[in-house]
């Protein structure tokens, strides 16, 4: 790429609508992440400003569609990736990410990180987390299901939209949640639930779009989803149903690439990630729970969110080992 260096700037001169990279400082760090993290309204731009003030460097984001795409991009690029940090994998992808051999131990003190159930790893550091939850429309449902069992066995005319575990992270989350609660009987439970399932969408956006357009009164999402509606839209209409068995956890992590051009700077970023300068931007920009202490007052809405007493989480290795078989089981039960 070096020899074509003039091209981006020439192109940028021709097409000013394409954003040009910020003025270069002496040091630079590239972070791979998912697109919504660095959207105008996401936490990325604010975190960039805060970190650049601290490090006197240039922080560059590269965004792909989502966590899965992030891992794929790494696999495609191999050790040619120019990034120092990959931010945005979830625990279900960690085992595969580790197996690429592209990551290196962070060697940092992670005692600031607090995750329900605990999570500690020598390669990946959590930066936020969220519990999966069934979100319901309180204008359409008076009493929401109080447990996963009630969801499975409830009125088939009261529908839920879920995501496909073959193509989406929340879809896989529900699959693991059902497996955690039902174990060997998961297939029968899925068969029962399938009568309540309006449709299975390829990703979160489609499902949530169907839900907010009023097509179904329930959708699989996160416990934090109501916070967005309460804070940004000032409505209490959409709420999370608390399930007595407990909720499945999603943890988002970042890791250091072994081929990072400036490892010291990359480690500095990982350290910064565990401080309020980073964490303060998570709740109301990424709509997830911060993984380390914040120094801001969370909006009142956050105190109204469901906070599960029991948390389910399979280890990354268990997921990697069983995913294919469990998806096959799901397909069999749902296709009947």
């Amino acid at each position, binding site marked *: 790429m070096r020899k074509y260096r003039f091209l981006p700037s020439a192109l940028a001169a021709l097409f000013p609508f394409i954003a040009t990279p910020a003025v270069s400082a002496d040091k630079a760090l590239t972070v791979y992440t998912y697109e919504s993290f660095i959207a105008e309204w996401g936490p990325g731009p604010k975190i960039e400003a805060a970190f650049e003030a601290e490090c006197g460097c240039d922080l560059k984001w590269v965004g792909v569609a989502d966590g899965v795409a992030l891992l794929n991009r790494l696999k495609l690029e191999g050790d040619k990736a120019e990034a120092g940090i990959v931010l945005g994998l979830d625990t279900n992808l960690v085992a595969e990410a580790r197996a690429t051999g592209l990551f290196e131990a962070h060697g940092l003190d992670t005692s600031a990180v607090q995750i329900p159930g605990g999570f500690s790893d020598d390669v990946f550091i959590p930066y936020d987390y969220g519990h999966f939850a069934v979100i319901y429309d309180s204008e359409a449902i008076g009493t929401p299901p109080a447990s996963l069992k009630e969801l499975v066995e409830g009125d088939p005319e009261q529908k839920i939209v879920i995501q496909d575990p073959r193509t989406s992270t929340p879809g896989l989350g529900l699959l693991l949640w059902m497996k955690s609660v039902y174990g060997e009987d998961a297939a029968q439970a899925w068969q029962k639930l399938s009568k309540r399932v309006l449709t299975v969408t390829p990703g979160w956006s489609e499902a949530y779009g169907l839900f907010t357009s*009023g097509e179904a009164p329930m959708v699989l999402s996160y416990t934090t989803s109501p916070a967005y509606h309460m804070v940004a839209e000032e409505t209490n209409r959409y709420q999370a149903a608390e399930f007595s068995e407990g909720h499945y956890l999603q943890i988002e992590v970042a890791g250091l690439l072994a081929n990072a051009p400036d490892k010291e700077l990359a480690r500095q970023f990982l350290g910064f990630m565990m401080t309020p300068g980073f964490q303060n931007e998570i709740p109301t920009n990424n709509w997830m729970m911060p993984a380390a202490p914040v120094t801001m007052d969370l909006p009142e809405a956050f105190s109204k969110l469901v906070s599960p007493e029991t948390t389910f989480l399979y280890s990354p290795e268990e997921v990697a080992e069983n995913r294919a078989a469990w998806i096959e089981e799901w397909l069999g039960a749902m296709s009947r």
Partner: protein
Amino acid sequence: MLTRAEHRTSRVAGIAALLCVGLALAAPLAVLLSHGGGTGVSSSQGDYLLRITRFTLLQAGLSTLLSLLFAVPLARALARRPVFPGRRWLISLFAVPLGLPPLVAALGLIEIWGRNGIANKGLGLLGAETPFSIYGLSGILIAHVFFNLPLAIRLILPALERLPPEYWKTAANLGMGGLSLFRLVEWPAMRRSAAGAAGLVFMLCATSFTLVLVLGGGPAATTLEVAIYQALRFDFDPGRAVLLSLIQVGLTLVVMLALKLISAPTEAGDTKGGASNRPDVSGGVHAVPDAMLIGLGGVFVGAPMAAVLVSGLNADMSRLLGDALFWRAATTSLLIGLAAASLSVMLASLLVRARYSADARPGSAMMGLLAGLSSAAGSLTLLVPPVVLGAGWFLMLGGGTGQLLAPLAVITLVNALMALPFVMRVMEPAHQGTMERNGRLSMSLGLVGLNRLWQIDMPAMLPALATGFVFAVALSLGDLGAIALFGSDRIVTLPWLLYQKLGSYRTSDAAGLALLLGGLTMGLMILADRLGNRNGSGLR
């Protein structure tokens, strides 16, 4: 009709275009295959594959059948009514679904056909107790007909309109009834376009992904495209993704060949172009059924779009339009669309001419191959999933960090290839007609080579060129971009922005963007139709 030198040039240029298309398709597949070791397919997967292949063929077959079943009578009715208020608008409107991202269209369809949709509310008023559910095969079929009925009409209608007025006058003088008119005049005229449209619709439905999953109601409705996506994205098994793509290509080719059998070339004769008056229907026997048919078709296609419009109008438009990011995305999308459309129209022109030239020498195996490959190029490109092409190209270019030109070029190339089948289908009949109408005259005038291309063929084909070009732009505008899945550093397109908004709870912003996207497509279509008509009439 071409001179010997023109034939030679056409064939050489056609072979060059074929090489470009072939390379653009084969290279990424080869790179992907060599990257990931193919894991093969286990026996349980074999059953799964068999099941989804069956479902893919079933839903695509039914969708095609339904689309064509309605498109043929609708195109006839529209051809019979060359003048009525709003006709141009309606025909321009028919191009809009093409430019809508599938998810946007799905949400629009649900406003009409969903559990809480207008249709169910109407039935509720009539006393129906439980709402009918479209989720399942019926939902997939409704969605596919919504997308493809208007497309098929737009492809078939010009074939009828190209018939010279004398045909209709003679038919009127002979007192031909509807049935014999259809059998002797209309069907022979539209057979080729209808078969071409059927092939295209089948391919589009066979490779449908978002619509099938969202409206299919569960994993029983899974197409091969879903398995390809899963193989490449979630399992990261490029070998399997390529294998599945090849199965998809092979199966669909069989269907295309079958369609080919019924689409024997037709005599285009001396054609006029543009809608002609129809003395054979001046009696007005068909007036009521025609109006009803056109009205129903218009409502079926228009209602979901109206739903998109209504939810779009609820968005905070002034804020959306004041957003610099929106303008950046719109400019990028338009520039990519224009570049992709130019490339696509260029490739299509070369391929169409090469095919014509090769067809002119039947019996030669080489020429048969050239003709076959040229028409296959107009089909194959749709069957290789853009996500596979994008991944392969990404790998070939060695990643995308910091690069701007490479990903832009890949998006443009993939979009141009995607549009090729549409553009070729629009241009092929027009080219055929031009050759038969002006060929002999040009030769007797000694007008050959570039002069002829510039002065005779190009102006005569302008309406088709304009339509093909705008089809390609519209398609490109609605495409999320294969590259999006693997990272497109600083490139933001309109659909990308739309999905970004949808992915972060901003549903109403997304609805506003969908409206702008649909409006843009509609505007371009109207422009192309006006441009085509004006130049077409200027010639005569």
